[in-house]
Structures are given as C-alpha cells and as structure tokens.
C-alpha cells in the first residue's frame, strides 16, 4: 500500500512542478500578480510531495519491504539499520530521488529566503527551478520508478547492498555532493530569469552570489568526502584517480569556483555580465553532464551505477533541452556591451579575469580529457585511455599558476593598481615563501621540482593571505578591533584561500614524498617503509554482522617505539559472496600509515601493501576550510540586512555602474 502512495506522491509532485514552471512565469510576463502569487505555495507543494515519496521509500527500506524491487536489489534483512537508511540512495533510483529531494529543497529555500526580491524576479526564478524539477520528475517517473513491485513473487530476502557502499561514506557523501550539484540550479535559475527579463545587473549578481557560494561549499564538502571515502574504502590508498565519475564532480566545482569569482566582479563593478551569466549556465550544465556520465554507462568508471541506455538517452535529452534552451536564450538575450569601464593592467578585475581564464582552462582540460576517448571512438579512431598520468602532468601547472596568481591578486585593488607598488608589496611575501618552502622540502628529504612548485604555490597563498589580513586589521584602536572590523565575507575569503593552500600542500607532499611498498610477508616478518617498521604479528579470523573476515595484526614501530597496532581485513560478504579489502589506517595530521592485505601467495605468505602518506589529511582538511569559508561568507551582514539599509547598499552598487540597466538591449 505505502509504495503506491509514494508513486502517487511523485506524480502529484510532477503535476505541481508543471504548474510551478508555467503559472508564475506566465504571471510575470503578463504582469498578473495573482498568478505570480502561486509561486511560493507551488514550490512548497513540490517539496512536500517529493519529501513524502522519499519518506515512503525510506520506510520501505527500514521495514525490509522486499516486495519493492529497488529495496530487494539494494538491501538485506541482515543489514545494520543505519545502512538500511543510507541504502535508500545506494542505487540509481533512490539516489535520483535524493537528487530530486534536494532540488525541491533548494527551490523551497529560494521561495523562503528571497522575500526581498522583486516579485517578477522571484516568480521567474521559481518557474525555472520548477522546469528543472519537471525534467527530473519525468525522468524518475518514466524510467526509474523506485516503487516498482516484485509481485506476486516477493523474495524472501534482499540481494544486499554492494559491500563497498556499506560504509559511513555512503551516509554523508551523496547528500553533500548532490546538495552541491543541485544547488547550482539556483544560480542557473537566476541567470535564466535575468536573461528572460533582460535585467542582468549588479542586483542580479548580488542575489545569486550567496546561493552559488553555498552550493559551492556543499560541493567542496561532497568531493572531499568522496575522495576520503575512496581512500580508505577502495583499498589501494589512492585519493584521486581522475576517473570519469570523479571528473564529473570536479567539473562543476571548477567552473563554479570561476563563477563565484566573476559574480564578485559583476556585483562590485557591474562588468563581465555576459561572461558571468554564461558561467552560471555552464556550471549547472556540467552538473547535469556529470549525472549523465555517471548514469548512462558511456564511460567506464570504478564508481558508476549500472549502465542503462534508456536512462542514458532520457538524461541526454534532459541535458540537451536544458543546455540548448538556455544557451539559445543566452545567444539572443545576453548583453553585448562595449567595454566602458576602465581598469588598469594590475587591477583586481584583471586578476579575477585571469583567475577565470585558469579555472576555465582547467575545466576545459578536464572536459576534453574525460570525453576525448568518446570522441575518438565516435570517429572510429580506436579506443584509448586518459588517466592519472595525463592529468597529473597537465593539471598541475594550472593549479600552481592559479595559486601564484591568487597570491598576487590578494593585494590588488579594484579599478587600478600600480604595478610598481604591487611588485614592492610582493617582495617580502615572496622571500618568506621561498625560505619556508625550502625548509619544508629539506624536512621531507629532497628537492623535487614539482614538489617545490606545489609547496611554494601553497606557501605563497598562505603568506599573502595572512599578510593582507595583518595589513587590513591594523587599526588605531588596536589589532583586535581591526580584526573584528573585517566582514564575514572577508573572513570567508581568507578561509577559502587558506583551504586551497592546505589542499595544494597536501596533494603535492603526498604525491611527491609518499612511499608505497608491496611486500610479501609471513607472520613474524618485519618490513621497512621510510622511518617506519611494520611487524606482521599474526593473522586471525572474525565474524562480522554480514561477513566473515580474515584480519592481520601489524605493529607499527618508529624509533623502537610502537606507534599503533593496525588490523587490515579481507572480508567475504555472506550474501553476494564478494571479497573486499578493508585497509587499516593510522591517521595523523602530518602522516597516515596505511596497511592493506592483498592476495594470499602461499599458505603462510601474504602480499601486503604498506604506505606512508605524509600530509594526506590536508587534502580534506583544506576542503573543510573552503566549505567553512563559503558558509561564513554567506553569513555576512550584507546578505541578511534589513530592508532600509538594503536599499541604500543597493543604490551604492548600482549607481556607479555604467550602462548596466539597458545593456541587455545594446548590441553592436
């Protein structure tokens, strides 16, 4: 009974979404306020019914209702309750429902938090979000119904959740990631609404900025969680493999980062509007492209869902409609403006433009690197693989350059920055960074060119950020007062940039100074990795909730002292009979020690993978900083100010900006 209710809820949500995508928009175009007034109730309605469907599916999982095909395929009565809960999004249908729930949630959030916006704008934004909802609801109702039943032959028990997914990672990673992916729909909706009514101005940039920042912060978290999960769960100690699915999540992050920065320019200076609106469209399109790549099976990946051509075709159709419609709208409606503002060569505008060049180049590189094999296959030029060695070689220079540019850009001023002044300004940070980087490299035992560049770039960003903070916070009333005077969005930026530096430092050090050994050990053996000694004490067996495991016991020794005892496992799951390697990790802020059991070579001997991974935690720590920076920035008083004050700020932003108001109509 319940599952049918869930399906009914989905269909009702679809109908409401259709209304949402038509009624308020029609109202805004014909100037009928009574139609526009439907926007918020309809948005709430969509959310309520999608939420209901989600609750029904969750209920089916928790109560082991194996008459529902999706539950039978992705759960088992032996599964611990928390995995039953997260198994809701452990497969294609449920994760799609989660995606839609997030989308409906974002739509509702826009309806609630945008009361200050003009009615026309809010109606159009909600209608565009409604259209996106319609697309995905159609997708789930037509091709991927999670409530399909296995009647009358109800299986006695479920096929179990893929053991790789029976992990804390599944509980947190997809929700965060989807919050990010889907959150960019809001920036997209603002862009489309602005294109429709021709009001592409500073006010638009200001409204979509916090939404973009939040979505970006969630996506940063989601990607970091995914990387961390793959690191400890897939059993080989890698944290980023440049797999198509990983690239799919990186793409909107890269272009979203570019978007955040260009929105800043558009808000503050009212320039680069066409570029910013294009980035908003592209970023959301890349989120959709990601969904397509993950779910269509056109590319092979370690992480992808089961491939299904029908779903692939539908998603591509959805992607095509979205992209073609929005880019066509863009082509006809985006403002073509003569450059009327003047900015010096070293102005902040130019630095942010260069930042966009690098970020967009990185985006293009990842798109091309991911899709190139498909293109060659299409042209019948053979199959080839583009993987880690290619991306490491091509992506690293862009990352380093972004860091270098960022460090210099922090000191630049809007409109005009004197080149000589800037160069003098950079002298001390440069000297400090070089000395510090050299010290770090000596500490890790050797100069490597790429390690130097990566660490230097991170150091440079860090020093410049703190230098700037120090200067900005100098105040006659004392340092503390100066620090307090800075806005939350400034601190958000500081955190974000420090996060980038931390991640870069971690990535560089672990790739250059990490040590990995595959050794053959029998109990009693000792292996050496760097300064650490691993004593293989013995191997035992244990029984888990739904698996049996063989586990090793390793003493990790440093300078004759035992640092930790690790128990890597090889698990055999009872239901699917799949075998999984469960590595054990001694985690630390400055290094991880990683032990995994491989194949059994003889009765006694095992292949053991031992790894020393310096600063690997910094990868994810940096992402936490970035996400925290994003959340802090939107807590800025500017975005939550009372109406009177808001109007004033509004005038400030709009007035000095030439040609914005009519620019939509200006062509050349």
């Amino acid at each position, binding site marked *: 009974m319940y599952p049918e209710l869930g399906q009914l809820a989905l269909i009702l949500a679809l109908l409401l979404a259709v209304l949402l995508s038509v009624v308020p928009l029609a109202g805004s175009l014909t100037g009928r306020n009574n139609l526009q007034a439907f926007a918020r109730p309809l948005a709430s309605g969509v959310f309520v019914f999608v939420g209901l469907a989600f609750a029904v599916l969750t209920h089916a999982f928790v109560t082991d209702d194996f008459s529902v095909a999706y539950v039978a395929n992705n759960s088992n009565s032996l599964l611990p309750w928390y995995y039953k809960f997260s198994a809701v999004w452990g497969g294609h249908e449920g994760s799609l429902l989660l995606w839609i729930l997030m989308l409906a949630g974002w739509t509702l959030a826009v309806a609630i938090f945008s009361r200050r916006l003009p009615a026309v704008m809010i109606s159009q934004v909600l209608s565009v979000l409604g259209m996106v909802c319609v697309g995905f609801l159609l997708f789930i109702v037509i091709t991927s119904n999670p409530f399909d039943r296995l009647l009358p032959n109800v299986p006695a028990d479920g096929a179990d959740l893929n053991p790789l997914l029976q992990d804390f990672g599944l509980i947190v990673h997809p929700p965060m990631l989807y919050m990010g992916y889907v959150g960019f729909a809001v920036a997209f909706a603002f862009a489309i609404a602005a294109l429709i009514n021709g009001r592409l101005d500073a006010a638009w940039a200001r409204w979509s900025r916090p939404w973009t920042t939040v979505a970006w912060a969630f996506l940063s978290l989601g990607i970091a969680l995914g990387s961390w999960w793959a690191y400890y769960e897939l059993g080989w100690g890698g944290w980023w493999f440049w797999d198509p699915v990983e690239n799919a999540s990186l793409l909107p992050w890269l272009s979203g980062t570019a978007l955040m920065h260009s929105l800043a320019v558009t808000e503050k200076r009212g320039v680069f509007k066409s570029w910013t609106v*294009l980035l908003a469209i592209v970023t959301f399109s890349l989120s959709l492209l990601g969904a397509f790549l993950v779910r*269509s099976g*056109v590319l*092979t990946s370690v992480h992808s869902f089961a491939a299904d*051509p029908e779903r692939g075709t539908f998603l*591509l159709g959805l992607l095509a409609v979205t992209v073609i419609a929005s880019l066509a709208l863009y082509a006809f409606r985006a403002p073509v403006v003569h450059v009327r503002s003047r900015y010096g060569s070293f102005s902040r505008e130019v630095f942010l433009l260069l930042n966009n060049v690098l970020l967009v180049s990185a985006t293009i590189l990842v798109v091309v690197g991911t899709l190139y*094999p*498909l293109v060659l296959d*299409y042209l019948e030029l053979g*199959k080839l693989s583009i993987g880690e060695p290619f991306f490491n070689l091509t992506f690293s220079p862009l990352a380093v350059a972004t860091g270098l540019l960022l460090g210099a850009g922090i000191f630049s001023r809007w409109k005009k920055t004197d080149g000589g002044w800037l160069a003098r300004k950079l002298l001390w940070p440069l000297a400090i960074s070089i000395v510090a980087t050299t010290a770090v490299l000596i500490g890790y035992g050797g100069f490597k060119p790429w390690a130097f560049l990566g660490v230097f770039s991170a150091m440079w960003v860090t020093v410049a950020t703190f230098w700037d903070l120090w200067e900005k916070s100098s105040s006659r009333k004392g340092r503390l007062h100066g620090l307090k005077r800075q806005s939350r969005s400034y601190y958000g930026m500081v955190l974000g940039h420090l996060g980038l530096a931390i991640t870069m430092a971690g990535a560089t050090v672990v790739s250059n100074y990490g040590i990995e050994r595959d050794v053959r050990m029998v109990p009693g053996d000792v292996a050496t990795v760097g300064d650490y000694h691993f004593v293989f004490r013995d191997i035992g067996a244990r029984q888990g909730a739904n698996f049996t495991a063989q586990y090793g016991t390793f003493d990790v020794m440093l300078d004759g002292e035992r640092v930790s005892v690790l128990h890597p496992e090889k698990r055999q799951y009872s239901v699917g009979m799949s075998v999984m390697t469960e590595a054990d990790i001694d985690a630390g802020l400055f290094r991880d020690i990683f032990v995994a059991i491989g194949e059994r070579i003889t009765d006694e001997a095992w292949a053991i993978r031992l790894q020393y991974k310096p600063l690997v935690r910094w990868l994810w720590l940096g992402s936490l900083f970035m996400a925290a920076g994003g959340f802090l920035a939107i807590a800025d008083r500017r975005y939550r100010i009372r109406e009177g004050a808001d109007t004033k700020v509004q005038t400030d932003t709009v007035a000095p900006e030439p040609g914005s108001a009519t620019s939509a109509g200006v062509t050349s």
Partner: protein
Amino acid sequence: MKRFLLFLPLLIALVVGVVLFAGIGKDPTKLESALVGKPVPEFSLKDLHNADVVLDQSLFRGQVTLLNVWGTWCPACKDEHDDLMWLAEEKGVNIIGLNYKDNREDALLWLDRLGDPYRKIIYDPRGTLGFDLGVYGAPETFVIDAEGVVRYRHVGVVNKAVWEQTLLPVFNDAQGNG
C-alpha cells in the same frame, strides 16, 4: 559580429551532444584486438588430448579458423558451448580451442560431458599464448584467416545471433580473400 560569438557555446554544446548520443548503448569495455591484421603470435604448446604432441602457429595455416578461448572455470564458456557444437556440427566451421589457464583433467571431463566442437585444442595452463593474444577474459573468439592472420576478435559469448551478425561476415570475407 559579436552577437555571433554568443552562439559559440551553443554550437560547442551541440557537437558534444552528438558525440555523447553516439556513445549511448555502446559497451566501452569491449576492445578491438591489437592483433587484428597481424599473424598469430609464435607459440609452442601441447595438445590437450595428447601431451606428446606439440602444436605451433602453423596450425592456423591453410583454412579459415575460429579460435575459441575457453576454460572450465569460466561460466560464460558453458553458455556458449552448445552454440559452438552447433557451429562445428551443423555449419562445419573449423574451430580450434585454446584451453586457457585450466587443468587437463577438468578440461577433458568437461569435453566428455558437453561434447567436443574443436578440431584441435591448444593446452595453455599458464596462459602464455592467451597473454600474447591479448586475451583479457574468457570466452573470446578470434577469426583467423588461412594465412594465419588475425582478422577479428569477439569478446563474450558466441551465440547464433553473434555468429550470423558479427562473425560470419568476417569469416566469409576471410574466405574470399584467402
């Protein structure tokens, strides 16, 4: 002129869309053999039925051959076995087997039970010839022409549909030229 530039993203998106559309439904895990157009690698391996007989690449000279890679450990090989029997008995196709990473007793027992569609079977317990042929998963089936040159490789089960639609055209082509 500048308005034209604004259409550029749309154009790029359309081109990418076409490529993505073409990619749907293709199996990206199926690879063309690197040996197509090259002769069968040199080998010297024993006959499965008779350990005293040593077979080599001259086995493939003289007539067009299907080289079928199989093993008793491979469930899909069992699925295709009846169809291989049909090919050998009804269609008179010349099939040579490559018993890959298997052991002799199991393999002989399997043939006793299920029938033997092969003219000769190369016994490759360590998978050396399989490795040289670029075999990455059984079953795989190669079409080899009368000169001993690899024409085609099919990865996965051979059934009547695969034979008629995929292998037969290559087979006929090889016969025409050979």
